[in-house]
């Protein structure tokens, strides 16, 4: 699998570290809403298909990247620097958190 780092160009997956679900938005640091924190730390969208995720080019420039990748085919459809993508984040995707 190759991921095209916006700085380094296409590089093998072995140069990257998967840093997880890319659509999570860290709650307000002062928030004490346990549900919100629980969702941030533990709940994942985990789709079978297009997935927004964070990868670090840890074996290259070390930048974190916002990657859109299909989890069924592994096809990477977009890559950008996570620090730029950060502002576009939306947290509207979550409907129901899993509860017991």
């Amino acid at each position, binding site marked *: *699998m*190759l*991921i095209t780092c916006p700085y380094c160009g*296409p590089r*093998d*997956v072995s140069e990257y*570290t998967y*840093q997880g679900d890319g659509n999570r938005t*860290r*709650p307000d*640091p*002062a*928030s*004490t809403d*346990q549900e919100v*924190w629980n969702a*941030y*730390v*533990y709940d994942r969208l985990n789709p079978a298909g297009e997935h927004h995720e*964070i990868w*670090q080019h*840890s074996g290259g420039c*070390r*930048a*974190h990247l916002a990657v859109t990748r299909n989890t069924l*085919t*592994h*096809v*990477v459809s977009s890559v950008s*620097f*996570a*620090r*730029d993508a*950060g502002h576009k984040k939306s947290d509207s995707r979550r409907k129901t958190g899993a509860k017991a």
Partner: protein
Amino acid sequence: MSPRRAISGGRIDRLRTIRFTFDGRPFTGHAGDTLASALLANGVTLFARSFKYHRPRGVLTAGIDEPNALVTVLSGAVREPNIPATMLEIYDGLNVASQNRFPSLAYDVGALNQLGSKVLGAGFYYKTFMGPVIGPLKGTRFWMFCEWFIRRAAGLGSAGLEKDPSRYERMNAFCDVLVVGSGPAGLIAAKAASDSGARVMLAELDATPGGSANWSGETIDGLPAAEWAAETLRDLKARENVRVLPRTTVWGYYDGNTLSAVERVADHRNTPAKGEPRHRHWTIRTQSVVLATGAFERPLVFPGNDRPGVMLAGAALRYVNQYGVLPGQKIAIFTNNDSAYHTAEALKKAGAEIVAMVDVRDDTSVAGREIAREVGGEYLAGHAVVATEGGAQVSGIKVQRINAATGALSGDPRSIHADCLLVSGGWSPTIHLASQAGLKPEWDNDLQAFLPPKPTQNWVGAGAFNGSFSTEKAISEGHAAGLTAAGATDGKADELPSVDADAFDPNPAPVFEIKAKGKAFVDLQHDVTADDVRLAHREGFVSVEHLKRYTTLGMATDQGKTSNIPGLAIMAETLGKPIPDVGTTRFRAPFAPVSVGSLAGERYGDIRPERLTPMYDWHVENGAEFYAAGLWHRPMIYGLSGESVEQAYVRETKAVRGGVGLVDVSTLGKIAVQGPDAGAFLDRVYTNMFSTLAIGKARYGLMLREDGFVLDDGTTWRLGEHDFLMTTTTANAGKVMQHLEYLLDVVWPELKVQLTSVTDQWAGAAISGPKSRDVLAACVTGTKVDNDALPFMGIVYGEIDGAPVMICRLSFSGELAYEVYSGAGHGTHVWQALIKAGEPFAIVPYGLEALGTMRIEKGHVTGAEIDGRTTARDLHLDWMLSKKKPFIGSAMMDREGLVAEDRLQLVGIVSLDNRPLNGGAHIVEELDEANPHGSLGHLTAACYSPSLGKYIGLALVKGGKARQGTRAFISDPLRKRFGPVEIVSHHFFDPEGSRMHG
């Protein structure tokens, strides 16, 4: 002359004789021979024994699809099992043994298994060996008892026990176009792509590129096809933008057009050249791929189809045309398609007698009938072979009339004398790589074969891979594919080479199995018969995956290259469904077996690099024994002769507590945290405040994970307004760095903070003990080191013996102590200067054992306690949790599970029986050596404390805070160590810290 070598012909070098041995017997062959062709030329027909029934087996194919003729290559004590004789190039001194037989290939006691073959059918293991319900063999023991015997009989070749001294290497390659397969389609594709300026790689699994041109006997551009191929190859090799890789099997098609291939660099030579790897593992990242991988011929399934002397017709064509070898003298041919007619022609030309042409089809082509007449022998259209005759070698065949549409046999069988039977059941395109790269293949009813799926990655196909079996089409498709792959469009089709070849209809009659009495094999290596397939059907294992798993069809070393389609066809017929409805197998990597050595590549014998501190050589010279700490080597003790580990660390500890010692702390993770927001950032990631830290001061810090558990600890030093030096534990350096980088990049991109790993920039030497200040005073210049100039947690800059140093006064040992940092390149220089300056004070170097002993005495935590499951409160570090600010982990650290009273909490443990304690021992309230139970927790670390004169340890104990001052027991059944202990505070030694503040 060898008995089966044709007088002339073939691409072998008849002037070069090669000597080799097979099962200890000397043989000769010629340069260009495979083991299979050389042995066939010598009249050898028995190559191997099958897996299950140990039936005698010959050679079925001429290539990588060989299911039968597997051998072990011996080089000294090193063994390479399960190598197809068809893929093994002979060289002088080659030593090969047959396998899976005892005592010999000709007489194998394992063949007795055949007697029970009715019982040993598919799935028999599952139905028996359950054993008795009671008694010593109850439960699974009866099975294990039987299994012992089964395992003694199992397996094909033996792996050696000696280390393979060979070199393996990995190679990264990048190109525009990778062409897989070098038959006419591949050669032309490579040429077209190269002509249009692309960087091209051409991989061929055989030794001689050219593919079918090497044995087709056709004429291309007026040249014999093999010569045309050689000529084209010479042209390609001379080009700057082409790399040709012979003996290279492309076996994996991974994501992102990454393909992997193994090049057998030196397998065809007795010894590799100096520095040359035996195998080279190529990882090829390419813009596009041309798949010109050809096709595999399928056998027909009929009783006796496994007898040595039965061979694929296409293989025979290759033996005669490429190797000048006749697979027999009196040859019968059995086919359901036209391709085998060419073999008949070629064999006749080379001097063999064709005794019969048996074709299941009634209405064969005019051209076919013409060839049949020319080659002579009986022509039996509308007939089938229903049996072979002979012992471990074909001596004849039985034929009977067949209706190709219904498969019904009629008339009486009759015998025909023959010493070899060539079979063709049609051709299956070699679509494995395409299948790995994508979707399901598509069934073609005319060809009775699966064609490549639609691409999901960037590849184009050409030639027989596409189901286009004529050389003319291979060339035109190859050309187009080469251009497409290179992204070019201006190639001229009229420049393509002309082909002079007999046209043939590749479509077979849809006959896969001849249903007559007797064992008819589908998977030859695993002895899966047509009846096994039908048994699987009866028992409901009807999906293709169930069929494979239940019968082991296609699971042998040849991965079903010759057996998958016939097996599927028999299941389809039994179900009364079309073949594609039964299912298709998705092919997975590897296309063909790959040596483990090649995949390990350069890491074979060197799995991980070593990480060395600047003072490593000094430690070695001064008697250190080392620990592995991740990739680092760290001194454990500096033992004197005759000293035990415990004696050494006790001596070193006493020397530090009583005087002064020096320890290498260069492995601590060090991160430069720089920028105007560095202080604010640290406040967010540490539980305590750092923005308030004065320049020139250090502070102990604690980090939590987002989930509120402890991540790491360490000191961070403020070197400037915007400049901090963070230290982490050795083990967590990488993890902490990544954690911080994530936060800066993803969570707080607005912060102006720069992180740099400076672990390797600094050598760290911690000098500890009441005399440490005296030693520094004696060697440090440019600064004072007294309590005023350098108070606890203070930082000064100076020089030691001319080298600049940064000194921070902090203590892990609990003594008056300093960490002396210098540039790594000055590390040994400074270390030696400190040792020299310490000589009057009897300074000792000390290792991790002494360091660990002193930290246990002090109750400091390390990775054994920060094990990813402990909280700050568990470790008595509540005082570090700032209430003035949120920090990473603050929101989650108060969940009920993290604050429960009965959590494992840090305590000290004192041995009350004056015997050593072990890390990993458990703590119990009641001792029960026979049935240990009721664990309260465990020891994380233990040592003999010279300061207390006792064996002590740290432990994580349930509700430990409340248990201080109580008695308990150590329970260590694994090491049979039981005994009374006292639970105490983890601060064993100098709890007020007066020594380090002194």
